[in-house]
């Protein structure tokens, strides 16, 4: 761009190149603002107030749907949600023998009760979990263990499902991008999982995962002889998260695949032709050409998938109810069940911050958006 204008201005001696550039830059800037205007207007009208309200409410004790007076309480909601305390659990000494007490049934050392050692101020800490390190026993306490659990559930869910979706989505996009006979129908079929209404798809999977042979999976596994008795996929702690991940991967892989496919589609074919002539193999072409060119599409797809995964609500709410929370379903429980709007807003802000961190780290890690 620069060279063109330098040429043009050197011919016309009146205007110096600098002035001409800045004029052009100004025009470009004005056009940019005008183009951004519709989007910014929509944000201003529809999003500004609700988002500002969430931030504000998170510092209050507002009660949902009530005339009760609202007080400003600073960071109390955040403290309530995020306070974590780790402390050692000492073995219990048998007073009669002066030795460490051993559980006669399990043969394990007996430790103090977590509730006795965890702090009670400013509010009571309850046990989140325990672990052993270098022969010592530790307990992790939190003022809101359900929330800490929901954070860990949500992050595990997000990392595993987004990773699987990326791998599967990329594979599907590559397959569909090659030319074969039923490509058109394949592209349409590919979108079916994404097209099934989310709430209904949660119901559908709930039915398929039913804890008896009414459910497709138990009937199938039983028929294959893999299991002796039906598995309660949605009730047992071992299977709850894997089941959620499986459902989400099935439902949203098409989203990932289609976005990556569009990225593959706008790649100029001549690069591949040139690589072919140079004798680069398919795998080399993929690593040295396809992946780097696809990076921007991958980043955007990752950001939006992660954003949705961190806010996952429907499937947890419908399939697990209150037996296991995601951050958003815990948020819903606090707002609708406990009517604790201040606390619910604080959860919203924490989710917001988490999403922001993920988005920034994708952009930084994959080195996109460098001017």
């Amino acid at each position, binding site marked *: *761009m620069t060279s*063109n204008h330098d040429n043009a201005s050197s011919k016309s001696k009146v205007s110096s190149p600098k002035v001409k550039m800045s004029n052009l830059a100004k025009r*470009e*800037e004005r*056009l*940019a603002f005008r*183009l*951004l205007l*519709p*989007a910014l207007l*929509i*944000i201003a*009208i*529809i*999003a500004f*107030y*609700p*988002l500002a*309200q969430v931030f504000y409410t998170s510092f209050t004790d507002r009660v949902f749907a009530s005339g009760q007076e609202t007080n400003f309480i600073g960071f109390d909601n955040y403290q309530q949600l995020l306070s974590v305390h780790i402390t050692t659990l000492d073995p219990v000494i048998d007073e009669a023998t002066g030795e460490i007490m051993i559980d006669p049934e399990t043969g394990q050392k007996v430790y103090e009760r977590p509730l006795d050692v965890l702090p009670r101020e400013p509010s009571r800490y309850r046990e989140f979990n325990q672990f052993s390190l270098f022969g010592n026993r530790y307990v992790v306490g939190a003022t809101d263990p359900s929330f800490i659990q929901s954070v860990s559930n949500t992050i595990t869910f997000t990392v595993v499902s987004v990773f699987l979706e990326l791998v599967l989505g990329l594979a*599907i996009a590559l*397959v569909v991008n090659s030319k074969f006979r039923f490509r*058109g129908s394949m*592209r349409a*079929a590919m*979108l*079916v*999982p*994404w*097209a*099934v*209404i*989310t*709430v*209904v798809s949660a*119901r*559908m999977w709930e039915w398929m995962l039913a804890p008896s042979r*009414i459910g497709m999976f*138990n*009937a199938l596994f*039983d*028929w294959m002889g893999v299991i002796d008795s039906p598995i309660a996929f949605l009730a047992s702690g071992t299977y709850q998260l894997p089941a959620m991940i499986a459902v989400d991967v*099935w439902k949203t*892989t098409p989203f990932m695949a*289609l976005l990556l496919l*569009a*990225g593959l*589609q*706008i790649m100029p074919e001549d690069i591949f032709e040139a690589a072919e002539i140079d004798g680069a193999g398919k795998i080399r072409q993929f690593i040295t050409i396809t992946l780097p060119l696809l990076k*921007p*599409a991958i980043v955007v797809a990752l*950001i939006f998938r992660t*954003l949705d995964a961190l*806010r996952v*609500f429907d499937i947890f709410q419908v399939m697990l109810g209150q037996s296991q929370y995601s*951050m*958003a379903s815990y948020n819903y429980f606090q707002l*609708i069940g406990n009517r604790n709007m201040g606390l*619910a807003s604080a*959860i919203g802000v924490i*989710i917001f911050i988490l999403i922001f961190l993920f988005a920034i780290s994708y952009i930084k890690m994959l080195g996109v958006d460098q001017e």
Partner: protein
Amino acid sequence: MKKSSGTFGVLKRFGFNFMIIFILVYLLFPFYWAVNSSLKTESQLFMTPATAIPRDPATLEFSPTMQNYSAVLRDGQFLRGLANSSIVATSTTVLALIAGSFAAFALGKLRFRGRRPALYLILAMTMFPQVTVLTGLYAVITALGLSARVSMIFAYMIFTLPFTTWVLTSFFKELPDALMESAQVDGATTFQTFKSILLPLTAPALVTTGLLAFIAAWNEYLFALTFTSIDPTARTVPVAIAYFAGAVARQEPFGEIMAAASLVTVPLVVLVLIFQRRIVTGLTAGAVKG
């Protein structure tokens, strides 16, 4: 795929076809199960073990029922829901694509101060969970006095606009600058260049983001449930399905829900079939050479 010959070629084609079949089964089987369930009566649904096709409980012969479908179609709610969903999802998509592609062109191709903050501001509007923004959003909509359908269209901007903007920005950025410059040398204004050269080039991206945004709007439940609470005639399909009352009062009408889900998915697939031509052709390859 190039036609390769010999044993290796056959093997390769076989492997490729196997992969396609595997992908199709993985993606379609749960939907097949929904269709299968929709063709079963209440008692067939509760048969153990579950059957892969609707069978008569006594004779185990193939015996599908259409009762769920006729119940769904007789329900005026559902058909009105289809109309509402079409209006809301189409308007949302068009609005999100127009505002989004304008913004994306500015963000992806023009130089101006505040580019990065604008990009993140747009993304930030979608980073809160829906439940959290619901009360504030409801207040805005009541204050503006919007009807239920219009409220949904505007509310859905919260998740569709950042999506279209970000995806299209990344695609605009990929287009070579030389393209814009040569058009400008030819005397086209920046906006003309955008409209008649860059926009057609990103057609595959436009169609893709449009489809994904359309489906996201089509499937949205929580906002729709809240905003249509005062106007039941504006209920969209997901809400209409949630309001299905079973023939047996205490039982949720699972068969009917599955029938409705199957009926709703079909038009979407047809839509994709129509638009996928645009994704395939993608006028790009030749023109980008510059």
